[in-house]
């Protein structure tokens, strides 16, 4: 396969995994996060440091996901104390904190980041691994949706007080959503770091968080297949048209506005309405 296509395939998979992991937190559990790139970056930086230090890729992979999940647990604790709109602002702050912190750390490469991250396998192998991560994340989401855990998430998303009065331990369930979703972002970050072999702070900035959110919103927040389609489309769009790449943020922003106005359920919602006719 052409090297460019293979590389594109990997980045599509990474974005799909990112969008699915955010969908677990925001779509399933209703906790709007505007800082998902911080967890993506945590996985990337932790694994990069380990791999550059000579650790086996398997160790870097697991450590990146766990580190992101631990940070997600801490941010999740904040979600127990703030209202939904304040949570969005809190997570946005976490993203700025992450980038600001990394930029000033010499041991993390500062502004110029970490380079020469060893590639553990061929591009084809990385692509396979990336799509295995996508499949695993999607299957986890399907399993969650069918389980009492998914029911609990839906109850929280729709009416937290009613859920609590029915005996749901809302705090624990929210933390579970944060830990699983952020760990997923961390694993995606590990793959990104080892495919790109160079990471810089801006690769995990607020704009990236908003781009991931755009994939979720355009695909259909809460829908598994919709978010996969949304992530694929919004990753490929800038690659297919030069114009789209130049005006990527403008297009993503406009798409979110249009989706909210025309089909708040995103592409998945639109398909559902068409089927119902």
């Amino acid at each position: 396969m052409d090297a460019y296509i293979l590389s594109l395939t990997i980045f599509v998979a990474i974005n799909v995994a990112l969008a699915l992991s955010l969908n677990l937190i925001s779509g399933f559990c209703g906790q709007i996060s505007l800082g998902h790139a911080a967890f993506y970056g945590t996985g990337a930086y932790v694994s990069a440091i380990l791999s550059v230090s000579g650790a086996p890729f398997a160790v870097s992979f697991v450590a990146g996901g766990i580190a992101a999940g631990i940070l997600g647990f801490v941010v999740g604790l904040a979600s127990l104390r703030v209202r939904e709109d304040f949570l969005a602002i809190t997570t946005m702050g976490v993203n700025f904190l992450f980038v600001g912190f990394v930029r000033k750390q010499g041991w993390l490469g500062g502004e110029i980041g970490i380079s020469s991250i060893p590639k553990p396998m061929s591009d084809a192998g990385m692509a396979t691994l990336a799509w295995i991560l996508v499949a695993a994340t999607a299957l986890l989401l399907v399993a969650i949706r069918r389980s009492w855990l998914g029911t609990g998430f839906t109850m929280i998303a729709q009416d937290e007080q009613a859920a609590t009065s029915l005996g749901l331990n809302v705090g624990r369930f929210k933390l579970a959503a944060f830990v699983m979703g952020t760990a997923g972002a961390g694993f995606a970050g590990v793959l990104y770091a080892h495919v790109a072999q160079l990471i810089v702070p801006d690769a995990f900035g607020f704009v990236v968080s908003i781009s991931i959110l755009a994939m979720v919103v355009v695909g259909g927040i809460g829908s598994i297949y919709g978010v996969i389609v949304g992530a694929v489309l919004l990753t490929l769009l800038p690659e297919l048209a030069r114009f789209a790449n130049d005006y990527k943020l403008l297009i993503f922003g406009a798409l979110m506005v249009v989706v909210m106005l025309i089909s708040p359920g995103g592409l998945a919602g639109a398909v559902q309405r068409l089927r119902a006719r």
Partner: protein
Amino acid sequence: MEPLKTTSLSRSFGGVAAVRDVSLTVKDRELLSVIGPNGAGKTTLLKLITGQIPPDTGKIELFGRDVTAVPQYARAQMGIALTHQIVRPFRGMTLGENVTAAMGHGHFNRPVSSLFHRPAAADAARARELLDLVGIGQAADRSASEVPLGYLKRMQIARVLATDPKLLLLDEPLAGLNYSEAGQIADLIVRLNEGGRTVVLIEHNLGEVLRISHRVAVLDNGALLAEGLPAEVIARPDVRAAYLGKEAG
């Protein structure tokens, strides 16, 4: 062992005392109604009992255990259930799904374990039975966002019954219902009580309260004004004054 006992319970909001020094005991299998004019503190008292808000002072015991510092979800898991004055359906679900969701209460404290258990067909069937019990089984597949208030009030009762509660706290379940619907729901409350459940009812519909209650407690300005048999309590001049104005006394 009493299902519910409050001792010197008080709660203020700013400078306003919503509940003042309320000591109340609810006996096993009793149907106790808490009445009082608007703003008397009835809903605040229920919120204190369920743990939605903490008291400033005082103690709450459920089934003999001091739960004053126990969070709301844990109290619900002890077998108390609340239907809300302003209905709180999960609007993205059908009525049947609302009730089925509550049947997972045994899994609601352990997220990891709950991932490995899923709602079964039997849960949906049981939810349908509960909706039949409250008289809206035929609407099980209708969305909670499109049914009338009366359906949602009934669904709320079915939903809390799905958690198999020992103590039912019903906050104005008859409000907004017509005469016939109110009578049906009141009869249902009696049946639930006769089935072995202790019931605390907060209600403005005095006719139904007097008809179905074993005992009545009256709140006025946050304080317990009177308690006793319905006919005796409602005949007291101070209770009539609180309800109808001072000239009535």
